[in-house]
């Protein structure tokens, strides 16, 4: 479906009539001939195609990394897209980041390299106080097959040290980074240019096929999306996390990364960022929406497990007729939802936890990060003097749908937490699940693993009440 789009690509103003479902990667490489952005997998799993996306958020220019292979060009409207060519020094020197990579031998075959440079540059732009483990997280979506990452880590440490020594101010960070040659000069004009470009996002009719982040849709059906009528959910109203009464409400276009960094969420769930780091990678989290993950209905979705344990409600909107459905009742069968044609997920809401409430999320996958879980589970548990007042336990990967473990949760309610109770509930857990053997593990493994992860919830949340010996 062709539409007119305007945006900035590196230093160039672009105005095109284009199919909005075309991936940004294809546009960059084929239409613009910028070959520094590489195609490695077309499913967001390697990071070779990582570019930066600049946009005005709360009157400030902000950059984030995205996987261009899963990013529909329609979502670039009104934004600044930066490829490696747009980061290169105008006088053909290496930028300080490129220089450190070169010094440490952090580029061998070179195919993954532009992606790493983009990811790290994005981190450096957006963070006033640089920390190695956060920088590492920012490049963790980039896969390198040659270096074993040791030289990349050294280069990253050097970049941080270099910037620390420069004492770059957070006040006008882009200007400081331009002054120190981390960014080319044209970056100074981008904020102004974007303001002039205005809120040039597509005028969306949200009754069409809505694409949130598209990070799974473009893996599954990129070709057929080219022929479908689609719209995008990056709509201001839906992009908020707010307190509404006794609830926290998350808009339908809020990304996973927004949740991870939200002061509201962090206030009540201080460890949420550690949990959410296990979700995909930063470039994916920058695009992928919570609503998209829920509607995608993967039995092993990470958000679904998490929001099931929060006992969330969904606000569904059909031409402004709204209804509320419990997330635990939203899934009717494998990929079968209580969702009508034309209806979209407008908001996810859940109760603000009281001070006696604890929360935990567990996930095990073959690779700890940027991998789909074999099994995941979350728990929200409210106690008073070791008595469970209420508990919501969820599990993913063990049933055709993301599972709220209703019987297990009921069993635990009004009981005193101790080792026996935890071991006892496992029997009920086992009766509620029906895992199958697949590439993520055998049914036997998934059964054992879920038991272990439920034990892990209690060991982590109530270490003083659990006899570890009996858990092992």
């Amino acid at each position, binding site marked *: 479906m062709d539409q007119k789009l305007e945006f900035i690509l590196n230093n160039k103003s672009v105005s095109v009539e284009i199919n909005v479902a075309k991936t940004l990667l294809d546009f960059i490489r084929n239409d613009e001939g910028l070959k520094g952005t590489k195609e490695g*997998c077309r499913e967001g799993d390697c990071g070779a195609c990582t570019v930066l996306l600049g946009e005005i958020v709360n009157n400030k220019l902000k950059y984030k990394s995205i996987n261009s292979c899963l990013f529909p060009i329609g979502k670039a409207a009104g934004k600044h897209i930066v490829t490696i060519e747009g980061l290169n020094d105008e006088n053909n020197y290496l930028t300080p980041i490129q220089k450190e990579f070169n010094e440490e031998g952090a580029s061998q075959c*070179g195919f993954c390299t532009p992606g790493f440079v983009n990811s790290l540059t994005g981190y450096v732009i957006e963070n006033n106080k640089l920390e190695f483990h956060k920088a590492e997280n920012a490049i963790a979506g980039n*896969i390198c097959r040659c270096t074993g990452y040791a030289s990349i880590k050294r280069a990253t440490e050097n970049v941080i040290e270099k910037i620390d020594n420069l004492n770059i101010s957070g006040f006008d960070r882009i200007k400081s980074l331009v002054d120190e040659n981390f960014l080319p000069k044209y970056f100074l004009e981008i904020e102004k240019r974007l303001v002039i470009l205005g809120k040039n996002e597509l005028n969306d009719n949200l009754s069409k096929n809505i694409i949130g982040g598209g990070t799974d849709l473009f893996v599954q059906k990129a070709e057929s999306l080219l022929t479908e009528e689609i719209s995008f959910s990056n709509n201001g109203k839906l992009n908020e996390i707010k307190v509404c009464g006794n609830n926290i409400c998350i808009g339908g276009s809020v990304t996973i990364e927004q949740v991870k960094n939200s002061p509201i969420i962090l206030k009540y769930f201080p460890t949420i960022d550690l949990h959410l780091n296990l979700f995909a990678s930063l470039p994916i989290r920058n695009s992928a929406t919570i609503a998209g993950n829920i509607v995608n209905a993967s039995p092993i979705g990470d958000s679904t497990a998490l929001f099931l344990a929060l006992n969330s409600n969904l606000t569904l909107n059909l031409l402004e007729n709204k209804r509320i459905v419990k997330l635990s009742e939203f899934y009717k069968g494998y990929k079968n939802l209580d969702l009508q044609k034309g209806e979209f997920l407008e908001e996810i809401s859940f109760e603000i936890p009281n001070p006696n409430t604890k929360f935990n999320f567990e996930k095990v996958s073959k*690779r700890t990060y940027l991998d789909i879980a074999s099994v995941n589970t979350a728990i929200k548990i409210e106690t008073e003097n070791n008595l469970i007042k209420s508990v919501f336990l969820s599990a993913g990967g063990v049933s055709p749908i993301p599972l709220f473990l209703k019987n297990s949760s009921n069993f635990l309610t009004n009981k005193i937490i101790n080792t026996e109770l935890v071991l006892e509930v496992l029997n009920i857990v086992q009766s509620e699940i029906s895992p199958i053997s697949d590439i993520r593990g055998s049914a036997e493994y998934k059964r054992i693993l879920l038991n272990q992860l439920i034990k892990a919830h209690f060991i982590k949340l109530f270490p003083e009440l659990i006899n570890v010996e009996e858990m092992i």
Partner: protein
Amino acid sequence: MKNFDAINHLKGKSLYIDDFPLPEGTLHAVIFDSKIAHGKILSLNIEKAKLIEGVYAVITAKDIPNENQIGGIILDETLLAENEVHFIGEPIAIVVAKSVQIARKAAKEIEIEFHKLEVIIDPRDAFAKNSLIVSPIIFSSGNVNEAFKECDLVVEGSIDSGAQEHLYLETQGAISIPVEENKIKIISSTQSPTAVQKQAAKVLGVAMHQIEVDVLRLGGAFGGKEDQATAWAVMSCLAAKILNKPVKLVLSREDDLRMTGKRHPYSSDYKIGLMKNGKIIAYEVTFYQNAGAVADLSTAVLERTLFHTTNSYFIPNVKATGISCKTNLPPNTAFRGFGGPQGMFVIESAIVKAASLLGLPVSEIQKTNLLVDNNSFYYGQVVKNSQAVNSWVEAEEKFNSKLIIEETQDFNNKNKLYKKGISFMPICFGISFTSSFLNQASALVHVYTDGSVGISTAAVEMGQGVNLKIASVASNILSINVDKIRVESTNTTRVANTSPTAASSAADMNGNATLIACTTILNRLKDFAKIALSATENDVITIVDESVLLNNQKTELDWKNLIQKAYFNRISLSAQAFYATPEVHFDRKTNQGSPFAYHVYGTAITTATLDVIRGTYKIDSVKIIHDIGESLNTNVDLGQVEGALVQGIGWMTMEEIKYSDEGKLLANALSTYKIPDIYSAPENIEVQFLENSKNASAPLNSKAVGEPPLMYGIGAYFAILEAIKSAKPNKDFIISAPITPEKVLIALQG
């Protein structure tokens, strides 16, 4: 000195196959492949596909002008399946169209009917059904049967190791361009330009000089583009020939994963005999190699397994049987280590099992049996210049291994939910192609009249820094700044009859050829300088840092004007040189000989932490003493060691290739096949190069580095295994590699 290629990589300016500007009218090819693992083709209908607008041709076996055969060692591999298919992903037709999208659409319109035949995916099953690539290969020395009788302990066991996908970030691909009548230029992402040239000529029925192969660089290869880059290049060339148009063929990741072979999975039986003091007296082993559907390089890979059966240990009585089993999987192929890792994994498993029965620490048995000079490898080569003990002892001392062991025990005494494990992994890896004839290389060096230098060799740059090493050699010999030197693409018209860039030996052999060529030019220049400076016979001319010295005194001649003058005096400023590794030989009738120019040694100490509840683990640290000789470039060599290590860890831990019983690849995307990311690489990798190691067999006392360090990764498996044993001391574990979290948890809890 840093890798000059990296500067363009960092700017995104380096070209890979998918990035080359295309000649006008270039067409795009997509492969139509078999969806079943074994069967007869009853009918193939391409008519509907041909009718789609934008389709130029659908090429099948019938369209091949000459031989439908691309087998490298054994002639058992068709370019396009004709009557029968043998694995899922086997190419059947090439669809050529205006765009990739159109070609893909058309490929879906091809109709095919099969008569399904029995599918074998397991190597032991194949062996039982006598489905073999070649007859079993046996290497032996001494008499194992007699020796077992003398042993205090004889242990038997079986252990499997899995396949590994190369996952070069740049997928397979090539562009073929008809240059003029009767000549085609192929730009290929291959480790073996000559193999591409030869097979293309054979399939097309033209002379080799009608095919030019050019390789600028590869976006990773790791062995996966040694033999298996050929098919795609030949297919694009065939299409270009038939249509007389440029044709580009780049595999999508999905196609690449499905159609190409992996590291060979092995299933092995071992029997090891030791004395109470840990001395290994006898070792018998049978390797069932899963070769896949055709030979590819399987027999050579198997042979290297046999060469590395005893790793770094001297064992007087050994019998090793290698069986290359033919199954209905994509042909498995070269992968960094080339069968060596599979062999080493088995002996290490045997030692671990024997250690627990003897009540000795594993490391004590390992150390007791390390190779020393004048031992013989069981295939006959005498051990010279062994660094096995040196690297072990240096690792113990420099990394304070006693303290690491104490700390590990202390941690395990104090913790229940987490357990640590530690392992020592010594390596010994032979350098040279074991097919002795391949140990040859050439270089063509030009000095241009401005003093700049261009070098062409047989070596292909794929991130391993071979171009930089070759430039270092030239810079060293000519005593000119490396900035003056450019290492050109690998091109069959400049350097002919090339051996693959493989076996870790490209820098050694091509470096030596470059050294000879540069020395030839240098000697001509020195002779000329003598005349130009009116020096006498006994005067000594040297060139140092681009200055010409006469008896160590500076003269008016510098590099640049020396070259100018030499040119006007009609001195040849070019040289071609050839290098053949001396003295390597191996007799395939007796399976005895001295196939390696030298060996690379080293020792890794690995620690891992196991999460006992979740069955997950983390590799905490790997500390390595690596024998590099005198490094040609420490930056490059360090990168090779670290990168190979993590690749080896990936093979041993998370990289799991699974096929269904029907032969369908289940880990068929990067979302299901996981290679190490930044977090799963060890938190702490410390590499130190062994002191005082020299090597006369490679340029400037260096040693090859590509493959050997991969085998340090095996240490990760054993460190995890130790941690598991520490959590469940009374259980006996047999866990196949990779040791995934699934297998760990089932071992702990199942």
